C-alpha cells in the first residue's frame, strides 16, 4: 500500500470525475424531473398520475410479471442444464459451456431478430403447427407477451446457467452421495441439499436475469411491437412519440428502484443463509 494521497487522487479522479459528469449528474437531474412541480417546488403528482392510468398499470404489471416468469423459468431450466453440464467429462464440459456462453457474444439485435423468423405468421412454428394439423390458421405469436418471454429467456438463460454451474462446482463433492446414503430421494436431495448449498449462485443468477429482463430494450421493442409494451419501451415511446419527459423520468425512476429493490432483496435472501451457518 502506497501512502501518497495526492498521487492516489491524481490517478483516480479523472475516471471518477468523468463518470460523475457524463453519467451521474445527468442521470440524477433526469430522475429529479419527475418530482418537480411545474410551478416550482417538489411533488409526487407525476407518480400518482402515472399509476392512475390503467394503461401504465398494465405495462408496470407486465414488466414485473415477465421479469418474474423469466427468472423462474431460467432457474428451473438452468438447474437442469447446469446439472447436466457439471456431470460431463472435463473436455466435453468446456465445449458445452462454450456453446452456452456463445450467444452472449452475439448482438442482441441478431438474437432477437431470429425469433421473428421462428415465431412469425409464416415462421417455422406456424408452419409446423399447420403441417401437423394442430392449427388451421396461423397463430399470432409474435407481438405478444409470449414472444417477449421467449426472447428474454433466450437472452438471459446463459447467465443463470453459468452462475449455477459455478455454484454446483463449489458444492462439497460428498453432499449428494451422503444424502442418498441417508435415504433421501432425488426430490429431497435437491430440496434439502442442493438448493441450500447453491442458493448464492441462484441469487446471483436470479439478480442478473431479473434486472436484465426489466431493463432489456431490444427484445420487447422487436418482439412486443408497439402495442405490447414493457417499461423500457414505454419510456422510449414517451420520449420519441409523446415528448413527455416527465413521464420518462417517472419510468426511469421506477426502473431504477425496481432494479435496486431486486438487488437488495435477493442479497438479503443470500445473506440470511450465511447467518444461519455462521455459528458453526
Amino acid at each position, binding site marked *: *500500500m*502506497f*501512502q*501518497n*494521497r495526492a*498521487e*492516489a*487522487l491524481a*490517478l*483516480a479522479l*479523472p*475516471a*471518477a470525475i*468523468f*463518470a460523475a459528469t*457524463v*453519467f*451521474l449528474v*445527468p442521470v440524477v*437531474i*433526469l430522475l429529479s424531473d419527475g418530482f418537480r412541480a411545474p410551478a416550482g417546488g417538489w411533488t409526487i403528482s407525476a407518480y400518482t398520475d402515472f399509476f392512475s392510468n390503467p394503461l401504465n398499470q398494465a405495462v408496470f404489471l407486465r414488466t414485473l410479471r415477465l421479469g418474474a416468469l423469466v427468472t423462474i423459468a431460467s432457474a428451473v431450466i438452468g438447474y*437442469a*442444464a447446469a*446439472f*447436466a*453440464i457439471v*456431470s460431463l467429462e472435463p473436455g466435453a464440459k468446456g465445449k*458445452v459451456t462454450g*456453446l*452456452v456462453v*456463445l450467444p452472449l*457474444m*452475439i*448482438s*442482441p*439485435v*441478431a*438474437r432477437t*431478430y*431470429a425469433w*421473428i*423468423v421462428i415465431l412469425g405468421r409464416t*415462421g*417455422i412454428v406456424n408452419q409446423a403447427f399447420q403441417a401437423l394439423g394442430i392449427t388451421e390458421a396461423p397463430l399470432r405469436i409474435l407481438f405478444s407477451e409470449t414472444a417477449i418471454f421467449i426472447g428474454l429467456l433466450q437472452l438471459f*438463460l*446463459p447467465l443463470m*446457467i453459468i452462475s449455477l454451474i459455478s455454484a454446483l462446482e463449489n458444492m462439497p463433492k460428498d453432499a449428494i452421495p451422503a444424502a442418498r446414503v441417508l435415504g433421501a430421494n432425488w426430490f429431497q436431495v435437491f430440496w434439502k441439499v442442493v438448493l441450500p448449498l447453491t442458493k448464492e449462485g441462484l441469487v446471483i443468477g436470479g439478480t442478473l436475469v431479473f434486472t436484465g429482463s426489466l*431493463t432489456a*430494450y*431490444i427484445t420487447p421493442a*422487436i418482439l412486443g411491437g408497439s402495442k405490447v409494451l414493457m417499461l*423500457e419501451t414505454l*419510456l*422510449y415511446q414517451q420520449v*420519441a412519440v409523446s415528448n413527455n419527459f416527465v413521464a*420518462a423520468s417517472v419510468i*426511469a425512476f421506477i*426502473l*431504477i428502484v425496481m432494479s*435496486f429493490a431486486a438487488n437488495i432483496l435477493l442479497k438479503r435472501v443470500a445473506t440470511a443463509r450465511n447467518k444461519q451457518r455462521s455459528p458453526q
Partner: protein
Amino acid sequence: MTARSLFIPITLLLVIAFLIGPFLIIVAASFSAGETLAFPPQGFSLRWIAKVFTVESFRASFGMSLFLAIGGTAAALVLGIPASYALSRYKLPGAEIVRTVVSAPIIVPGIIVGLALLRYIVVPFQVGITLALFLAHTALVLPYAVRVVSASLDNLRSDIEEAAVLLGSSRLGAFFRVVMPNIRGGIMSAFILGFVTSFNQVPVSLFLSGPGVRTLPVDMIAYMEIVFDPSVAALSSLLAFLSIGIVFIAERFLGFSRYV
C-alpha cells in the same frame, strides 16, 4: 438406457437448441435467394451477404460503431487503468465512493443514461452527437475496464514495483516496466470485453442519433422497420462471426475467460 442416463443428453440438446438454434436459422436465412426473410430459405445465394456491403447507411453506421467500440474502450482504459491502480495500490481516501461512481453506469439501464446525456449534456452544451456517443460508450465500458484491470492488478504482487524502484527505476517507469507487462493479458481482455459490449450496445445509443450518425445496431433496427429482407440476417451473421472470432482468438491466446 435408464431415465437418468437419458436426462443429460436430452436436456443439453434442448437447451443448446434453444440457445443456438435461432442463430443458426439466421445464418441459414442469410443465404436465401428469396426476397423476404424466411426459413427454410428459398434457394441458395450470396446476394444478401453481398448487399450488406452496398447499403450506404450500414457502411457509415458500421464505421461509427467500430469507432465507438475502439475509441470508447481505449478512452475507458486510459481513465480506468490509473483508477484501478489507485484503488488497488494506494490507501485512497473515499475509495468506496470512487469505486461506486465508476461502476455505476453498469447498474443504470442504458436507455436512461442515453436520455440523461441527451437532455443535460448534448442539448444545453451543444455537444455534437458523435462526441456524445463517444462519451456515453466510454462511460458504459468504464465499469468493465475497472473491474477486469483491478482483478489482474490484485493478482500481481506489489513489491515488484518497489524492487524496480530500488534498482533505479522511477515510479512511473516501474509501472511501465514491471506492472504493465504483467497485466497485459488483463488489459487486452478488458479491451475485448469493452469492444464487444460497446459494439452490441443499443439502448444507450437509441436517443443519441442524428442525421447520418447512428450506431450499427440502431441502424439495423431502423432498417428492419422499413425493409424486411434477409440483408439484416446476413449482417447479423457476419457480426456474430466477427464477435465469436475475436473472443475465440482472445481465449486461445489470452485465456480471456480467466479475466472476465
